[in-house]
């Protein structure tokens, strides 16, 4: 499913004196198959935008298509139809909020993950539900038989987050949107979670992944395209390499990944590196460059 946003605007508390325009016309296309990054300062509109993607926020102005779903409510469409559309949409677009483990609520991991299936597919048999839950828990790298009857609160931080993600994967979404997926995890937990997302993406279990992140190293390491949000607009949509090579105010406030920073400094003394800013490629490129000079 391709996501196409054109001139998307949104104002909080539109009717009130203290209204605030969070989106000022977002033009952005996310292709099916993208591992897409969204970056920008706090208050730049990132969260408001992603909440549109599964209809948590209703389109106020402009247009937004997610696959065949037109998210801007039309006059012809009744409330009932719109609601029906939202339900179908939410099963295709999974949303993982910041610190999703805070939303675990059931007594067992099984019940928590099963909530999603029961909600979307109320007619499924118990057997089928169990099959799907087991599959989702297995996908996030947890041992189904070990964790199914545990309280979610007995799991470690990284495991809790995985369980929360399993609760989204269980409805088999095509698009997975994650807001700061690795925030608050230790370095090893971060690595594991990112590699889980890559596995889901590479195997086609989830076709498109969208992550919001403040960590530029994370962005340069993981995404193929990135949008920079600033003042309620997507001011740049490009590859991470392009984003971190251009020098201007909106991107320099973000900070640079280590690789891009070092490349920039080397460039100033006449050494040009051609690699993207992924750490392993950057190292290879530097080694090659060095061998050429000696």
């Amino acid at each position, binding site marked *: 499913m391709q996501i196409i946003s054109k001139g998307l605007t949104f104002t909080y508390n539109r009717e009130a004196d203290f209204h605030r325009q969070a989106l000022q016309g977002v033009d952005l296309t996310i292709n099916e198959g993208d591992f897409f990054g969204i970056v920008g300062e706090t208050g730049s509109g990132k969260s408001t935008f992603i909440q549109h993607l599964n209809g948590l926020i209703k389109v106020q102005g402009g247009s937004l298509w997610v696959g065949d779903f037109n998210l801007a409510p039309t006059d012809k469409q009744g409330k009932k139809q719109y609601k029906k559309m939202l339900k179908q949409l939410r099963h295709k677009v999974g949303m993982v909020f910041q610190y999703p483990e805070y939303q675990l609520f059931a007594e067992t991991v099984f019940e928590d993950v099963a909530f999603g299936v029961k909600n979307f597919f109320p007619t499924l048999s118990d057997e089928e539900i169990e099959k799907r839950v087991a599959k989702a828990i297995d996908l996030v790298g947890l041992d189904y038989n070990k964790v199914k009857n545990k309280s979610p609160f007995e799991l470690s931080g990284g495991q809790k987050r995985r369980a929360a993600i399993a609760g989204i994967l269980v409805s088999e979404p095509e698009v997975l949107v994650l807001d700061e997926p690795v925030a*608050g*995890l230790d370095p090893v937990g971060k690595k594991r979670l990112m590699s889980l997302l890559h596995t889901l993406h590479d195997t086609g279990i989830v076709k498109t992944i969208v992550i919001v992140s*403040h960590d530029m190293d994370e962005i340069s390491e993981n995404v193929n395209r990135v949008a920079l949000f600033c003042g309620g607009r997507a001011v740049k949509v490009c590859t991470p390499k392009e984003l971190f090579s251009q020098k201007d105010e909106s991107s320099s*406030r973000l900070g640079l990944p280590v690789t891009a920073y070092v490349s920039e*400094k*080397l460039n100033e003394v006449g050494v040009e590196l051609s690699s993207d800013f992924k750490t392993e490629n*950057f190292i290879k490129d530097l*080694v090659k460059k*060095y061998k050429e000079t000696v």
Partner: protein
Amino acid sequence: MKAIEIKNVTFNYENSKIPVIKDLSLSVDKGEFLCILGENGSGKSTLSRLINGLLLPSQGDVLVFGLNTRDKAKTYEIRKSVGMVFQNPDNQMIATIVEDDIAFGPENLGVPSDEIGKRIDFALKSVNMERYKKVAGQKLSGGQKQRIAIAGALAVMPEILILDESTAMLDPLGREEVLSVIKDLNKSGMTVILITHYMDEALLADKVAVLSSGELKLLGTPTEVLSNPQIKNYGLDYPRPYYIAQKLKENGLPINANVFTKEDLAEELCKLFQKG
């Protein structure tokens, strides 16, 4: 003088046989900056709560400026001398207006109102937020909210400041704001304990402690600890610049690979290529 002495402390929560902290000993000098690293669930937050007496050890003792946290008569004094700032900028605000929020601590302690006014000004100045005295807390950015949380702790005039993953939810600018405030406070004599998952933040400290399964596994200067391959066993990882430098050296680049910041890595590489 020792600000904190943790002596053979073991702690388990009620109804649980598994200790969260195991026979841990550690001391912090007055004015020292200690960073605590460790994987999720390693006991870092529990340790911080043992220091200000929110939790009491199951075995062993915790002394804060010589006062034992077990001594109920001293609880008040200990809590006053240990300020805590937590992770989430959105649930540490009590009042709607910044100055009222900062006044909450000293008001609770019965500080006279003209003195409270002075403390608010001092606290806001310490975190570079003087201009926001009358502003509604909800209008602030994450970094600003965390600085107000620090100001709230400072208004009680603590001698020790504990920050429990206080930068985890901030964007890079917000993180920088908060870290620079912490550095300045430490320079002016505040004892600081910073709990974090960011390896680069550990570089700011005098001393780094690594916790795993409730035990103190490593203790040393930031560069000693961050270059120790054992950290990988404890859920941690090398800072990225150090990792890159090590890889380059392994591949035959004659550089000083003992670098921990992107600035130092860039400098080493520029030197190398300019020579050639």
